[in-house]
């Protein structure tokens, strides 16, 4: 059980709930709550997967994602984008920035589990 995930989400109760269900599923979970140093946090922790909220304090999730994609070490890292907006425009932005998967709030716990496991091919 070596799978690890970094949840970058500023809403503590959301990251707590996601963290709980993922750890029950056997993941090693770390959380991070702001956008400014999120890229550094990913580089330091080297998770197998990142769950990234779009609206973060300090920096947009899309900017963070673009930086991750530009870096060879994280260029292929599976990233699940969370957003409160579900319009087509938002989906396009996410896929242009390089999102592996896109999920609209509110989502169910089962959807999150299914998505993250599909992303790492478990």
């Amino acid at each position: 059980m070596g799978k690890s995930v970094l949840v970058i989400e500023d809403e503590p109760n959301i990251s707590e709930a996601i963290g709980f269900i993922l750890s029950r599923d056997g993941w090693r979970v770390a959380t991070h709550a702001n956008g400014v140093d999120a890229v550094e946090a990913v580089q330091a922790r080297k998770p197998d997967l990142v769950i990234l909220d779009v609206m973060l304090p300090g920096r947009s999730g899309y900017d963070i994602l673009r930086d991750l994609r530009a870096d060879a070490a994280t260029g292929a890292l599976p990233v699940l984008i969370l957003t409160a907006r579900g319009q087509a425009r938002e989906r396009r932005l996410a896929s242009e920035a390089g999102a592996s998967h896109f999920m609209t709030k509110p989502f169910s716990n089962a959807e999150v589990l299914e998505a993250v496991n599909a992303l790492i091919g478990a």
Partner: protein
Amino acid sequence: MPREGRGFDLTGSRIRERRLHLGMKQADLARAAGISASYLNLIEHNRRRIGGKLLLSLAAALGVEPSALSEGAEAALLAGLRQAAASVPQAGAELERIEEFSGRFPGWAGVVSAQGRRLAALERSVEALSDRMSHDPHLAASLHEVLSTVTAIHAAAGILVAETALEPEWRDRFHRNIAEDSARLAEGARRLVAELEDEEAQAADLATPEDEVEAWLAAHEHHFPALEAGGSVDALLEGETRLGTDTARRLARRLLERYAGDAALLPADRLAAALPKGPLDPGALAVRFGLDPARMMRRLAALPRAAWEEVGQPVPGLVACDASGTLTFRKPLERFALPRFGAACPLWPLFQALSRPMMPLASVVRLAGRSDRVFRIHAIAQPFGPPVPNREPMFEAHMLFQPAPGIEAAATLPRIGITCRICPKPACRGRRDPSILAEVP
């Protein structure tokens, strides 16, 4: 800028315009001014600047003030024209001949310049409107807040339900999170509603003239004592400051003139004294007062609230439409709104009446909604305007609707709506648009 000097002095063009206007030959004018015809020709084509004594003698020969020939077109007009030209560069306006244009056609130039200004103003308000709709930061922030808390509650509740063997610490923790988040959700939802209401209030400032007239009629409760007493529409509109636009005043005038005509035939107090305590029958009342049924419906809709309270009846609403189905008169009720945009429910007796001209229709219906309310409805379609031999009459329909609180909303009563988008009626044969409300199974 080689032609600028000419561009700004078109005295010659004005001399030529004036001479042609008088039907005078170039040679005659030249002789009167004491110059050669060829020199005058150069002047008239703006190839020679003139001034002083020659300008005075030409002006005298043409019978105009010298300033009328020498003064350029107004700078403001030119600026307006330049701006209008700049906003449509692909039209290729001849900017080098701008003064010639404004000098020769001052009226048309005024129209172009005024339209340019108006277009710019309209573009600004369209921008402001669409900006507010799509980028309202407060609205977006409130929505985001609500969705975030819903997500947190949803996730925590999901864990509480799915994890049967949850440790007590965790269970307490998620319970606490749900309690916190639901308080935030309540606050966020309240703020969202407040902002939407605010938005609505702002939208009222940008209402159409029709909305303006409707609000104005509602403020008067559709009753105008001055007109009942034989006062003139002019006098009534004179002192009215709430109707801002000319279009609104014109619409109001048309309605009021009809009102005054109705009131002259049957003043409100006479009709009020004849109101029955039981169910209303506009047809019978019409016969009794020698009016046509549509006019009687309009008179009933114009009665003051007090007259209805007197006989213990709810105030009725009225809607009229022309043969195209366009609503031309609207007195909505709080419980029976009339659509502002888009078309009404095709099941309204108002529209059925159009296919059965001159036939009074009476029915009791349920208005589809969260809880159906019962209304008594009277409708009729009648020709309007003077009858002209061998010309098809134009029809208009009226529909009077009055709440009937005493009647139970039985399933056997026909069910009608306001407009498709906000109507929950399932499997409706009249449905045009999908409903934004969940369908009732």
